[in-house]
Structure formats: C-alpha cells, structure tokens
C-alpha cells in the first residue's frame, strides 16, 4: 500500500552534485550537507561535524562515509554516526532521488523554531 506521509520538495538535479561530492542546502535551522555517493545515492546530514563543527560537506566522500576536513573523523552518511574509535553523531535528514532530481522532505522547511 502506498502511504506517503511526507511531501517532497524538488531542490535540484542530482547532477548538480559531483559523484563522491557534496553541496550545502541552507535551512532556517542551519546548513544541511547533501552528499552524492559513487553509485548515485544521496544522503543528508547537518553540515556540522560532531567533533568540532567542521563542515562535513567539504570532506572526502568514500563508500557511504565522509571524512571531516578538519580532523579526519569518519562519519557514516546513513546513520550520521562517527565510525571507528570516535564517538558522536550528527542528525540525518530525509532525502531521495526521483528521475534524476533530488527531493527533500518538506520537514526541511519546517526546520524553523517558532518565531
């Protein structure tokens, strides 16, 4: 059965992000890094490393992980969790691809504290 609870917003084409790369989306609650893997999957994490806030979007993307550019923590793209001996976790966000377009959950818009 098809039960879609989220609305999806088209933000960009998949090809706007290089394979094994990332770009940033600004939201009212801060930047979200959108990653594209070597096999064209996309993931979204807060663009703040759990270590000292490094911009994960500038890291090297390998497999389904990214290495933070500041001190080389390796963050799992799927879970947002630090791999290996390091401990920490960054929030992940709903995202998907459809027909070469990147869609994000409308929750991203709602990421705004009640004003």
């Amino acid at each position, binding site marked *: 059965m098809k039960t879609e609870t989220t609305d999806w917003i088209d933000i960009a084409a998949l090809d706007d992000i290089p394979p094994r790369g990332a770009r940033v989306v600004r939201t009212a609650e801060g930047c979200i890094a959108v990653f594209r893997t070597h096999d064209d999957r996309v993931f979204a994490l807060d663009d703040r490393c759990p270590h000292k806030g490094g911009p994960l979007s*500038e890291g090297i993307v390998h497999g389904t992980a990214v290495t933070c550019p500041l001190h080389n923590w390796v963050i799992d793209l799927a879970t947002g969790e630090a791999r290996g001996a390091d401990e920490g976790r960054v929030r992940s966000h709903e995202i998907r691809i459809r027909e070469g377009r990147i869609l994000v959950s409308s929750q991203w818009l709602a990421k705004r504290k009640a004003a």
Partner: protein
Amino acid sequence: MKEKLVIIGAGMASGRLLEDLFEHAPDRYDITLFGAEPRGNYNRIMLSPVLAGEKSYEEIVTHDAAWYRSHGIATRFGEPVVRIDRERGCVISPGGETPYDRLVIATGSASFFIPVPGRDLPGVIGFRDMDDVEAMLEAARAPGRRAVIIGGGLLGLEAAAALRARGMEVTVLHLMGHLMERQLDPAAGYLLQRALEARGIEVFCNAHTKAILGHERVDAVLLEDGSVHEADLVVMATGIRPETRLAVDAGLRVERGIWVDDALQTTDPAIYALGECVEHRQTVYGLVAPLYDMARVLARRLAGDADAAFEPPAVSTRLKVTGIDLFSVGEIATDKGHEEIVFRDPGRGIYKRLVIEAGRIIGVVLYGDTTDSGWFFAKLKAGEDIDPIRDTVIFGPAYAEGAAADPLAAVAALPPEAEICGCNGVCKGDIVAAIEGGATDLAAIRATTKASASCGSCAGLVEQVLAATLGDDFALPEKKGICPCTDLGHEDIRRLIKAREIKTMPALMQEAGWKSSCGCHVCRPALNFYLLAEWPLEYADDAQSRFVNERNHANIQKDGTYSVMPRMWGGMTTPAELRAIADAAEKYDVPAVKVTGGQRIDLLGVKKEDLPSIWADLNAAGMVSGHAYSKGLRTVKTCVGTDFCRFGTQDSTGLGIRLEKILWGSWTPHKVKLAVSGCPRNCAEATCKDVGVICTETGYEIGVAGAAGMDLKKTEPLVRVATEDEVAEYVTAFIQLYRENAAYLDRPYKWVEKVGMDWVRARVVEDADSRKALCERFEISQSVYRKDPWAQETGAAQRRRKWAPLADLTLEAAE
C-alpha cells in the same frame, strides 16, 4: 455474444498476455490484435543475436500466422491504431473503426533520440524493432564501414558488439563517466570497457554529442570537445520513451507512462494497459520479466479473477554479449543503512559487489563470473538474513570447497618483462629466473639480481614475486598497506601504475584488488597524485579525491572560512598589487590580513561563496593563486641580491622569480618550498628549504632536502654550477625525480632519507641524459598544470554556481 477485446500492439507483453488468457479463458472474447509493425510477435530481446548473425529472424518469431489463426485472433498487422474514441467505445485505424468492450494498450516504447542537429539524417537509426535491424544490416554490408553508437547502455553495447561481429569499425560514445552507469559501478564499468576494447571496439566516456554531421546521409558525429568521429551509420541508443500518445489523446491519466493501478486498469475501467508503456507505482519497466508478471495478472483479470494484483518484482539485468559475463540486480536506492561487500580478483578480471541493508542483500553487481548470480538473486528476492554467512557470502555457494581470494593475484598476473626494481632495471622475469636458480629470500635476490638493492622501495613487490613463485615455501612478511583498503604500500602502487600502464582510478583499484568500492580519504588523494604524476596528459585530475584545500584552492580555517593568498613572484610586489589586495580585503570584509613567512600576504577569513569573486578581482589586477594550500610548489623566497644589497653576488631575486615561474602549479607528493639567497649570509634562509640556492662570486650552490618543521635539518649539497640556466635545469630535474618516486606525503627530506643522496645525484647530476629526460617529463606535465586554478573557477557563471549553496530553503520557510 462474446465480449469484444481489442489489443493495441503486438509485442512481447501482449504476446504473453494472449497465451495466459487462452489458458484461463479460451473462449471468452472475440479478439482483435493491432500491430504497427508489418509482422506478428517476435522475441524482441533476441534482436541483437539477429543483428550479429548468430540467429535468423525466423528463429526468434514467437507467434506465427498459424498460431493466430488457430486461436481465432483477427490480426491487423502493419496497421497502427491512430485514435481511441472512448465515448463510442471504438478504436480508429487506417482500416476504419473497430468497436471494443474492453481495450488493452500494449504499445511498448519507442527509441528516444537526443535532440541534436542532424538526428533526422538518413543513416541515423534507433534500435527497437526488426526494421531497425534491417536498416543497420544494410549499412553494414560494404566492407570497412564505420558505425558510431551513441549511448553505452545495455542496448548500445549489444548493438556495438553485434556490428563489430559483422566486421564494422565500431565506436561507442557514452555521456557518463563509465559504461552502463545505471547498472554498474565504475569498477565493473571499467572491466566491461576493457573487454569491449579488446574486441576492437573504441569506447569514449564523458562524450557529449553536439551534432550529427552530413548532407544527404550521415557522415560523422561531432562532440562538444570538438572531436569528430566518422560514421556511415549512427545508432541512437540513448534511451526509450514509453509510447503513450494514444492514451494522452484519449484523456487517460499519463505520467511517464500510462498510469495503471494494481489491476493494470487505466483511469477508464474499460481500458487496461501493460508492458513498457505503463507506469505502475511510479515505476516504468524496461525489461521483460516484470512485463510477463503483468501479463499473468491481466490475463487473470480478464478471465474474471478480481483478486489478481501486480506486485513490483526485483528486476535483474544481464548483458547479452557473447563472452562477456555481467549481471546486476537491485535499484540504486536512497534508503539509509547500506553497507557493501566487495570482492575483486584482478588476475581473472572478476568483480563482485553486494549491497546490504539490515542484513539483507538488496543489490548485486557481478562481472566476469556470474555463475552465482542465481544464488544471490534468490537470496535478494527472499529477503534472506545473510548475517550468519556474512564473512563468506561473497564467495558464493561453492565456498565450502572453494578457496578464498588470492592476494598475490596482481603480482602473479604481471608479465615477465614488467619492471619490478626501477633503480636497477630488474624485471619480474629476472627475479623468477633467480628463484629458479635457487634464491629463496629477499637477500638472495638482492645479491643475484640487485633488485631492491638500491632504494629498497620495491622490496615488497620482490617478496610477492617470491611468494607467488615459491608458493607455500615462502612466508610473506606482514605487510602494511597505505590504508585499510589495500595491502600494497606506496611504492608497490606506483610501480603497478607504471608497469601495467594503469590510467584511471577504477582501473587501479580493480587491478590492485582494492577492498572497498571507491577507496577512502587516505588512499584516494595518494592515488590521484600518482596517476596524474605518471600520466599527466591522459589522466584527468579528480577533484573529489582531493582534500578540501586543493579542491577549493584555499586553506580551510577552523571556522569553515578560507584564506586567500596571491602569488608574489620571488616575494616581489608593486604598489598596484598592494592596492588591489587592500581593496579586496575591504570589499569582502576580510577579518585578518597577515604577512606570511613565505614573503607574501594572506587574507584570512574569507567566506566560501565569496572566493570566486575575490579571485576574479585579484586576477584582474594580474595576480594568480599562490597555492598556499597545495601539495605542490608553495613559495620561492628570495633576498634582494645584486639589485640593491652591497654584499650581493648574483641576481638572487631574478633567479628566484625564474624558478617560481618554472615550477608553479606543479603537484608534488608534499609541499615544496624554495629559497634563493644572494650570498652566503643567507638572508632568505635557503639552507632549511626543500631546495635552497646560495649564490657565490663564481656561481651557485644548490642544496636539497632541508627541513624546518617538526624536524630541523640543513640542506645537503647537490651540486655547484656556474650559470642560472644550469640552476634551472638541476632544480627542475630534482623536483621531477621527487614527483616520480616519493611516497605521497613524504617531504623531500624524508624521501631522500630513504633513497640516499647518492641515488639522487646519480640521476640528477652524474647522468646528463637522465637529467634532461627528467626536465622534459616535467615540462610535459607542466603543459597541463602550469595554470592558475583561480582563473578556471571565475569564468562561466555556471562554474561559479558550484560555490554557492545547492538551495536556500530559508526563504521559502519564511512564507
């Protein structure tokens, strides 16, 4: 009276539907079958073997005239339906009106031609039906004719292999970075490309078609990069488009395909649709297996079974090119939690990858050995928990008897003439001969062949040759790979790149048996450097394998801002440049301006999105990037020398500028800093640099391999020369030797410590031919890399866009 069932399209889906329908309800309907092609149903997926000459058309016919007759079907072949009149319940074709009680649309899809000029020229052909095959065969008839296939997907590659088998010269132009990118990852795509090239098919990836050229007929294909590929025949295999026109005109709901529900009913309850022309739960199918499932469901529906419902199945792909084994299944999903298991056997050209989610296989790519595809596919379809067999699952069901991967495969596959020891020119064959002559360990090899007797960097490879040749008699010492993705060390990798002429990263990872699908942050930057240093003209630098600083041409600071440092050649500047720097600092609110120890000015705290603009401003004032962020040439410090100083012996400033202009832009294993002092008082501190030149009354002393970081080390004398020209030559040769041999992230002093000054002098000083050759190779590389990275980024608006956010949702949120 029987109900009237009209079917539009006599293809594979409707063919299967009819068979199933006769099984469940042989007498229920009066059936009329329309087909646009002037023939009945045949096995479309066998068109490639017909094209290749392996089968005849007759052999692939699935329903002949006798079959239609015996089942009482009225066939209207060669007669396309042009309109559906839903109000009156009839279809309209050249032969008039045909009424229906129920209607089935099974119109399949049509070839999609990319919209480029010249696509309508005679000789440009799709690959969809028997007419296309006949047209291609007609074009292939004369000897020596050339076919260009646009599109390196399933269809394009089958056409390419078939036309090659017919003796044509075949070129494949593929838009993406590797073949069949929708089914294969880059590693498998690379193996496939290699196999096709071995058959004499030319393959070009990243090929953007600009136009098809010709007057009466097609002559050639022109790419965006200006290259022209001659063609007597162009096959457009750039995708398919569901054939939905009738449904659109009839006002049915059409998305990418004709919308159907689980009963395969369209938005009109009297009209059904199946096959490639439909879209079910947002999916359009392009392979027969799911279409056969649809046929089964629709047949039961038409026979009166109200419960039959179509469930999307997993779809697998195989390439039907004789001699190429390739299998893939599973979608490129965006769901979270994927892991992967990768297996490579470089010697046998085998690659296997399983994508795992929550302990279950959700995707499979097999290349070179597809014997286990059924086993994996079954596990995928069953959603079986593979955690208990996770460690061995990749080896397939035969693992119990089979052996695990052979880590020595890469070395075993080297030909005898492959050079193992670069220092002493010892080939694998020499080493094997020594082993056969009785040598059993590294020391013995060293004594008999001199392999690894000099710099020693090939010791690892020599040991692997020993192990591969002696088998169990030789215990390989524990070896540390450069990262967990590989067991090979830096030197082994450099040698493999050279010996096997490996020119791409997927190729390297495949040949060297990488244990991850695309490396990690440790190996990727190293491999990228090794490849570009070895193949400057062929290898395309991979920005995604560079650390942020080299990707963004600026140093990232701890708060995510960047520093911008223009080059000041030899530490010289002008009032105009200083003014431009000051203007830029104010215009972009630069929080800090610092004079560096490298004799230039650093603007710190620049925001990422401002980088292209500030660069453009500095470019406009004649300045280029200072590469203060790169593993490459940083600065050449100079003193004022004879220009002004009362002690100066030579033009140290001029020489420093000259060296900087030769060396700038080059990539090196680690950063490289130079200095030139005008006399032994050494104000430019040249004696602790990677390369330092001290001028004297009679000439120049060149020292190398100094250090002034965590280690402090004085330079070692390389040579003393008389002219500036010689300084330029010796310094260039030293830098190139370092580029060609050092391990990534070894500064020159570390590298020289390993190979020894004698080894360096032998190549740079004592052997003039070697020195000249090093300089030549450096110049070849610089013909590509001696350019300003800033200028590349400040050009087209499109380029600049990549520096901005992908999207800004703060604005929408405010609504």
